[in-house]
């Protein structure tokens, strides 16, 4: 039993952390986040050059990582610096391609930072339920066009959709089964409408009207679950990175801000509250460790661990965000202070890939069936 990262991973974390500290300061982040594109192709390339995207995929797929703890070290750093670039979608869509054994060319471009991908499982009615699909797949009309399908329907709130060249999309296949498809964005019938997101960067909805698509698998749900598990491991570690900054900023503020002539960190009520926040964060880190360790394991244990983790970071993220703002007082609500942006990210992670209640209920039913 051992709770330290391997030397390689620790080196990656350190290198990436230093890179972000220098290249991705909060001012840079705000500039990128508020730009019309909502991300920076240049930074994306820079991070790819560092090998960060490659760390998300295994050797068979052209990367050199791809395990739970590889995602962990990358996404923890992304959280620490509030990176808005399209990592989550690229991870999930890329792993879908890798696991389906399709389009290794596109995967290679992704790892080189030459493109970015999006992952579109959510629909307006689905509320985190991967199996709730109204987007419908039809075989392409042209008889000779084997393997090509058309998709119609709507996928919603896809992070950094506009940044992606392609999206991996789940859709209903016939009556009772579901498929995963690759859709090239910007082609006829695949209309992207983008918008700003609460936590910075942009998101988008994808309206499909007989959009041309390539089938990756006609048995989507097991793969969807597996990829979502990877996404949750990633988000959990991003949350840990975000929460560590929330804690550190709040501790700094408690040490320096004076009221009634003394640092507010001398007030016992605040002391006990920051301790509670710190305990929540340590428990969240443990949940993220458990989920990362279970990612390659059997389905029942994996799904229980990822639902436990997502529930935990959802809960802890809200506590850390709300308490950090409250202990800062007014200044904690200002756009100017980085804190508020970390708080928003912590909160919004709770809305991605299933919230606290969703995963608590899921944990319960997994315990019953598993």
């Amino acid at each position, binding site marked *: 039993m051992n709770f330290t990262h391997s030397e390689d991973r620790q080196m990656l974390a350190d290198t990436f952390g230093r890179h972000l500290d220098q290249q991705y300061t909060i001012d840079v982040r705000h500039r990128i986040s508020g730009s019309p594109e909502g991300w920076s192709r240049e930074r994306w390339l820079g991070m790819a050059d560092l090998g960060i995207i490659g760390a998300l995929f295994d050797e068979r797929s052209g990367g050199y990582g791809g395990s739970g703890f590889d995602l962990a070290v990358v996404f923890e750093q992304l959280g620490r610096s509030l990176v808005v670039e399209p990592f989550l979608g690229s991870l999930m869509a890329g792993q879908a391609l890798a696991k389906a054994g399709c389009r290794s060319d596109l995967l290679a471009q992704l790892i080189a930072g030459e493109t970015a991908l999006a992952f579109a499982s*959510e629909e*307006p*009615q689905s*509320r*985190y*339920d991967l199996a*709730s699909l109204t987007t419908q797949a039809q075989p392409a009309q042209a008889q000779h066009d084997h393997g090509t399908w058309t998709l119609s329907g709507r996928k*919603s*709130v896809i992070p950094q959709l506009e940044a992606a060249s392609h999206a991996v999309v789940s859709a209903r296949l016939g009556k009772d089964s579901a498929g995963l498809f690759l859709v090239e964005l910007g082609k006829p019938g695949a209309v992207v409408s983008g*918008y*700003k*997101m*609460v*936590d910075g960067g942009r*998101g988008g909805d994808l309206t499909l009207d007989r959009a041309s698509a390539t089938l990756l698998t006609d048995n989507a749900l097991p793969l969807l679950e597996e990829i979502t598990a990877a996404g949750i491991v990633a988000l959990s570690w991003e949350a840990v990175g975000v929460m560590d900054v929330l804690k550190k900023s709040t501790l700094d503020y408690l040490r320096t801000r*004076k*009221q*009634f*002539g003394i640092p507010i960190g001398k*007030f016992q*009520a*605040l002391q006990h509250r920051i301790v509670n926040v710190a305990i929540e964060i340590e428990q969240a880190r443990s949940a993220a460790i458990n989920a990362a360790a279970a990612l390659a394991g059997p389905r029942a244990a994996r799904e229980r661990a990822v639902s436990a983790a997502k529930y935990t970071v959802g809960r802890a993220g*809200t506590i850390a965000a*709300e308490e950090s*703002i*409250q202990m800062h*007082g*007014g200044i*904690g*609500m*200002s*756009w*100017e202070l980085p804190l*508020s*942006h970390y*708080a*928003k990210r912590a*909160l*919004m992670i709770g*809305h*991605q890939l299933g*919230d*606290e*209640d*969703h995963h*608590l*209920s899921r944990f319960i039913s997994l315990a019953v069936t598993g």
Partner: protein
Amino acid sequence: MDLTFTPAEEAFRAEVRAFLEQNLPSMLAEKIRTAQRLSKSDHEQWHAILNQRGWLAVHWPVEHGGTGWSIEQSYIFEDELSRAHAPGVVAFGPSMLGPVLIKYGSEAQKRYWLPRILDGSDWWCQGYSEPGAGSDLASLKTSAVRDGDHYIVNGQKTWTTLGQHANMIFCLVRTSSEGRKQEGISFLLIDMKTPGIEVRPIILLDGEHEVNEIFFTNVKVPVENLVGTENKGWTYAKYLLTYERTGIAGVSRSIAALKELRRIAQAQLRNGKPLTEDPLFAARMARVDIDLRNMVTTNLRVLLASGDGAAPLEMGAMLKIRGTEIRQEITRLARIALGPQAQPFCTPEGITAQYLNYRKLSIFGGSNEVQREIISKSLLEM
């Protein structure tokens, strides 16, 4: 005990409701219902409508243009306003400065300023908080030095809500550094157009410009703009804290917000059924619903026990804490109800933005931590 309203009070409720049905612009109600921000002219329009009916300054005595209403009437009025999604009254003039002038102002000040609050000639903002003086308000440093017929004001105020719309500001300023820090504070009325005043926006985490920093550099204020006695401003500021408690728990607004929440959750699906039928979400809603029903009664108990609107500080503090906790929980549940749809910055109903914005409720107006101090002092008598 009797928890019912009298027939006369019910008739009054009907009168208010009829007035709102006829006079509340639907565009304003829709903005409030969907948590959109009101423009300056929205506010001015609504103040004018209320003022025309004589219902702008609910808590003023009749002789100054107020309503002279009972506590029950004020409560019913607020309840109906909330139910109809009517905007609230911007408090600074009618609810904050007005009562101070009525109690402590000179005759000339009352004659001049009170009508201007009612007819909208002046938009007031509040100059209390300073960067170094948040919860410790009395440690404020903005100075006013007497120079002939003027005070010369230097310093900085912050968190000035809607200060960008205001032409006047009432300020707590330091006129003496002797004695306890509470003792050298004065209450000053300042024209925002006076040279030396600069207003800078503070953008909040929801991306909105709601509050401001205000800088004072050698600002000349006529001595007749001093309210009451020099160095007694702390007393007047504290009076405000006990004066107007009807709204502090925000129960009427919470009731309306809970109704909206139920509508939002009804429209969301979870496992193919409305979210209101999800056991965990239904339990969350029921918990805050019950807490709010209890708070309706706690609020009325405090208001009626305190008679003419001056609730004991610690009871008001209790209303502030639990009232804002309830309000924040409702906005939190609305955010949760939206699920993944809570992430776009511009949700149609401004739900996530309002959740973020309402973090202020437990910070501004005397943080909930300060309120706890007030209560524990009273409970422990130490």
